[in-house]
């Protein structure tokens, strides 16, 4: 036996033969084929039971109903609820991508954190909640012991009517600090205009669905305004109807926005001249006597010329408008042909239920008070106030008030001190909060007048038009506490992080979602248990108050946030009216003037609460129209074309100086009686038009989150490559403007304003008004993760805001720029 070559071959042949008749090769081929299908790094979705949780989206204050789809204990998808009255199944892109906000580990704070390195070094140490809250309570007690409770300040981005916002405000009251600031919103401007003309402070309630002529002064109805689900659903319900039976939409916009594209008529006046156009329409209504004589004569003040108590003669609104806003003059100001102005006015007047509305952007940015008043004046002229299909005068929900907070002497003394932002003082008499004057106050003092700053549900470093001065102020403030669940620009500047849950992990309320015309209380449910060591900010505030002790602890005698919320909801129960369920058959807006369906089906508060948790809504399918004398709370008890409140405020402010000086201070260009009336104010930029020939207008896109919530990765999928390419953001420029500046599609260019410069790329777009550069808001993050950070630029870096006359809010759409190709 020798192991020769020949025998080796035989052995080998036997081996091959044996292998071939064994399962080895055949099984291996099969298995390897399967192996190539199962790379271990391809994620395998977990299995589990399918279930759903009914909740409400609280990413904005729209209050859309959502159905959270779950597999096991994981959220897999979010869908709009057809059985929810606000949105009837519709959801905006951001709401649809909510699971990415919950599960993106890279952007979330997972536990309370203490800064250990120098600010900005991003060196953090995880601490316990006890440690974090005790430390903060001690610091706040320290301020109070020194008698300086006002050195605690807060910036709160929560919906101003929400329970969390009220809790935070209550904490400030109990501690004794007046420096509680709400983030600016469009609603502030609405509230101001409503207060000045109607004396009411209620929420905005546009009965759009019942209107047959919607005249929108730049209000981006289909670009994310109000409750986006409601608006898009409403559009979908009428879009298929014949033009003769559906509401006519006239939209005023400088750009072919989604709303402008769907409008029956699109008008493009020069930016910032919307008020002049409104006054032009008012002129035609008055000249042709097409206004509602009944309403104007009986229910308004200041329309005709009059003599006041001192015997001074005043020019009425009618005469001023007739003199100053002829269609020709309006054409000169706005660029809209006078024939179009006249036609539009006639159409407005002859419609059965016309409505005029304003608003810029999704609702996170303030507007201009005189402009809002000018547009609202049209509603008054047409007699559309508190009429079906018009602007309803709404009231806050009858939520049960909490027992009054307890104040000790430190608190009462502290609350008497002037607010740092001077909001509510004679200089800014009607404004709730002002971030930029707050920053100025901090920056202009030797040492920071604020020792502790609490920031909740807001990312002002990114979303404030004048972020530079705020960043400077934050640098100066010794101790910043952030409640943000996200590693956003603002929380990265903080010293202590007390992370909140994300919206899918907590219960939250949205009393009266923005713009919805009937009383509705939306309540969200946690869809999953908190993923990380985070805590509900409501619970944190209560716990903090109790740790501070004294009258502050006495003011917060609750065990949990849920208890405080439940306590408020009792008020809804006690009203004895309202519905908990919506079956989707008949939209609520169709039944507003019927007095049906008011009787509640629940018999006890507990059963109501259980049902409310299940359905997420309580609403009254009716509007109380009331009598005029109850509705208008102005000094004249009428709708005021001539605002007595402005007159009063300016009188107070001009004490000791001339009225002209006061007006110059407040930034009002008009003189005479017009000051107190809706009118067109030219909002001039501080920059020289020759040096900066172009106007930069930031725009908000419905598929790009521009608020404090960072844009989730899914939304990046929907951006066109003429909006974002690699890290370059595109601005929209008209072909004419592009050619005069030597720009082509895709050109890189430097945008330069008085305050800074940005590098962008150019998208040449016929739908952009010549002379204007449109730049999307929402990109240019320096925080968050790789999916967002460093993409695009933030327009606010070069916005050169001026103050809106009277309100002092930032005017963010009149920055002048140059654009140079590079």
């Amino acid at each position, binding site marked *: *036996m*020798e*192991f020769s070559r*020949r*025998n*080796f071959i*035989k*052995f*080998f*042949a*036997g*081996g*091959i*033969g*044996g*292998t071939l*008749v*064994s*399962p*080895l090769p*055949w*099984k*291996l081929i*099969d*298995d*390897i084929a*399967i*192996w190539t*299908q*199962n790379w271990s790094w391809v994620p*395998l*979705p977990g299995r589990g*039971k*399918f279930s759903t949780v009914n909740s409400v989206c609280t990413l904005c204050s729209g209050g859309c109903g959502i159905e959270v789809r779950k597999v096991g204990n994981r959220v897999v998808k979010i869908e709009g609820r057809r059985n929810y009255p606000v949105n009837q199944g519709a959801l905006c892109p951001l709401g649809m991508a909510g699971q990415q906000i919950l599960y993106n580990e890279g952007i979330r704070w997972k536990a309370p954190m203490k800064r250990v390195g120098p600010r900005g070094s991003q060196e953090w140490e995880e601490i316990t909640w006890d440690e974090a809250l005790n430390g903060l309570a001690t610091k706040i007690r320290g301020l109070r012991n020194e008698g300086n409770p006002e050195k605690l300040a807060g910036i709160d981005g929560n919906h101003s009517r929400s329970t969390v916002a009220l809790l935070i405000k209550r904490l400030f009251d109990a501690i004794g600090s007046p420096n509680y600031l709400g983030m600016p919103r469009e609603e502030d401007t609405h509230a101001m205009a409503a207060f000045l003309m109607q004396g009411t402070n209620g929420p905005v309630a546009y009965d759009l669905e019942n209107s047959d002529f919607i005249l929108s002064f730049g209000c981006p109805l289909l670009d994310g305004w109000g409750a986006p689900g409601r608006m898009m659903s409403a559009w979908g319900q009428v879009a298929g109807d014949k033009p003769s039976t559906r509401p006519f939409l006239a939209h005023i916009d400088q750009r072919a926005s989604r709303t402008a594209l769907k409008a029956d008529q699109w008008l493009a006046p020069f930016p910032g001249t919307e008020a002049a156009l409104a006054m032009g329409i008012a002129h035609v209504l008055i000249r042709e006597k097409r206004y509602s004589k009944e309403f104007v004569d009986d229910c308004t003040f200041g329309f005709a010329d009059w003599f006041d108590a001192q015997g001074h003669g005043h020019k009425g609104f009618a005469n001023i408008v007739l003199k100053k806003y002829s269609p020709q003059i309006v054409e000169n100001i706005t660029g809209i042909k006078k024939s179009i102005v006249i036609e539009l006015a006639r159409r407005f007047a002859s419609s059965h239920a016309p409505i005029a509305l304003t608003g810029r952007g999704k609702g996170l940015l303030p507007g201009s008070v005189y402009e809002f008043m000018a547009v609202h004046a049209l509603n008054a002229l047409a007699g559309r106030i508190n009429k079906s299909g018009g602007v309803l005068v709404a009231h806050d929900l009858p939520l049960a008030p909490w027992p009054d907070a307890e104040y000790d002497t430190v608190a009462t003394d502290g609350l008497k001190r002037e607010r740092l932002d001077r909001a509510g003082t004679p200089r800014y008499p009607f404004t709730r909060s002002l971030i930029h004057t707050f920053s100025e106050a901090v920056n202009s003092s030797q040492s920071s007048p604020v020792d502790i700053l609490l920031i909740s549900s807001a990312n002002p470093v990114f979303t404030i038009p004048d972020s530079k001065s705020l960043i400077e102020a934050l640098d100066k403030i010794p101790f910043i506490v952030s409640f943000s669940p996200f590693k956003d620009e603002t929380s990265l500047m903080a010293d202590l992080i007390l992370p909140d849950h994300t919206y899918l992990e907590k219960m939250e309320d949205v009393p009266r979602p923005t713009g919805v015309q009937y009383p509705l209380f939306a309540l969200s449910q946690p869809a999953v248990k908190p993923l990380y060591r985070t805590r509900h900010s409501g619970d944190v505030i209560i716990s903090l108050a109790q740790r501070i002790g004294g009258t502050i602890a006495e003011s917060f005698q609750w065990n949990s946030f849920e208890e405080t919320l439940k306590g408020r909801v009792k008020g809804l129960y006690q009203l004895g009216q309202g519905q908990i369920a919506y079956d989707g058959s008949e939209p609520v807006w169709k039944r507003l003037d019927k007095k049906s369906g008011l009787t509640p089906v629940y018999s006890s508060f507990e059963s109501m609460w259980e049902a409310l948790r299940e359905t997420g809504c309580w609403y009254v399918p009716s509007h109380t129209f009331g009598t005029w004398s109850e509705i208008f709370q102005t000094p004249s008890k009428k709708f005021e074309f001539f605002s007595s409140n402005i007159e009063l405020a300016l009188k107070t402010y001009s004490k000791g100086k001339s009225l002209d000086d006061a007006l110059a201070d407040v930034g009002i260009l008009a003189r005479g009686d017009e000051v107190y009336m809706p009118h067109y104010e030219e909002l001039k930029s501080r920059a020289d038009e020759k040096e900066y020939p172009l106007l930069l207008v930031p725009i908000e896109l419905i598929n790009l989150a521009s608020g404090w919530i960072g844009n989730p990765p899914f939304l990046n999928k929907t951006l066109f490559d003429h909006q974002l390419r690699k890290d370059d953001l595109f601005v929209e420029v008209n072909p004419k403007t592009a050619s005069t500046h030597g720009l082509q599609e895709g050109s890189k260019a430097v945008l330069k304003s008085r305050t800074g410069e940005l590098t962008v790329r150019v998208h040449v777009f016929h739908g952009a008004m010549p002379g204007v550069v449109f730049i999307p808001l929402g990109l240019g993050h320096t925080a968050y993760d790789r999916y967002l950070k460093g993409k695009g630029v933030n327009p606010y870096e070069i916005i050169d805001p001026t103050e809106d006359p009277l309100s002092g809010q930032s005017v963010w759409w009149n920055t002048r720029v140059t654009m140079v190709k590079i």
Partner: protein
Amino acid sequence: MEPDPKQERKGKRDGWIFFFAGLIGALIVGWIIFPLLLYSERSQPLNFSHVKHGPESSVGLDCEECHFFYEDGTFSGIPGLKKCIECHEDPESLYTDSPEEVKLFTNFIEPLKEIPWLVYSRQPDCVYFPHIAHVKMAETECRVCHGDFATNHTLPVFKVNRLTKYSIDIWGRNIAGYRKNTWDRMKMNDCAACHKQQGKEHNNACLVCHK
């Protein structure tokens, strides 16, 4: 030199020995060693006895008690822990003296942790299999695919393919893929053959079973 015929015969015989050595070696490798190498054994978290729970037992549970359809038509193949707790609620009063029951309490019920059962018939992720179409609509018996599980006192050893990570029961316990009973193998071809046999060849369109 003339070759020695004896030598030659011996050489040929030797050659056959080598050939058969190779052949037998390969057969041993292919039929015995390869399967041992290919599969690794894993033990179930608990040794569940169908017999002790089933309709014939003193407990007397119907099969549908655990293996039922939800209202959306999905199938509760293996019930969740909640189902176990319905009966096994009190750690102080055990039904048996089995250590498995103690394990059930200490490892799963007390920490409220779902039992990570190893599923013999788990199909690849790309497969969609609706029980309801087969069991309710086509009236297929459970044992056609799963065999006589209900008569098991102990759970079979769970073997997992090291390459594919699938259970051995997909390919079948027979390494040659030999199939005596309908439940011996669960490969795609078996599904297709059965569909064809039942006159439902249209259900062999790709998307019917793949997701």
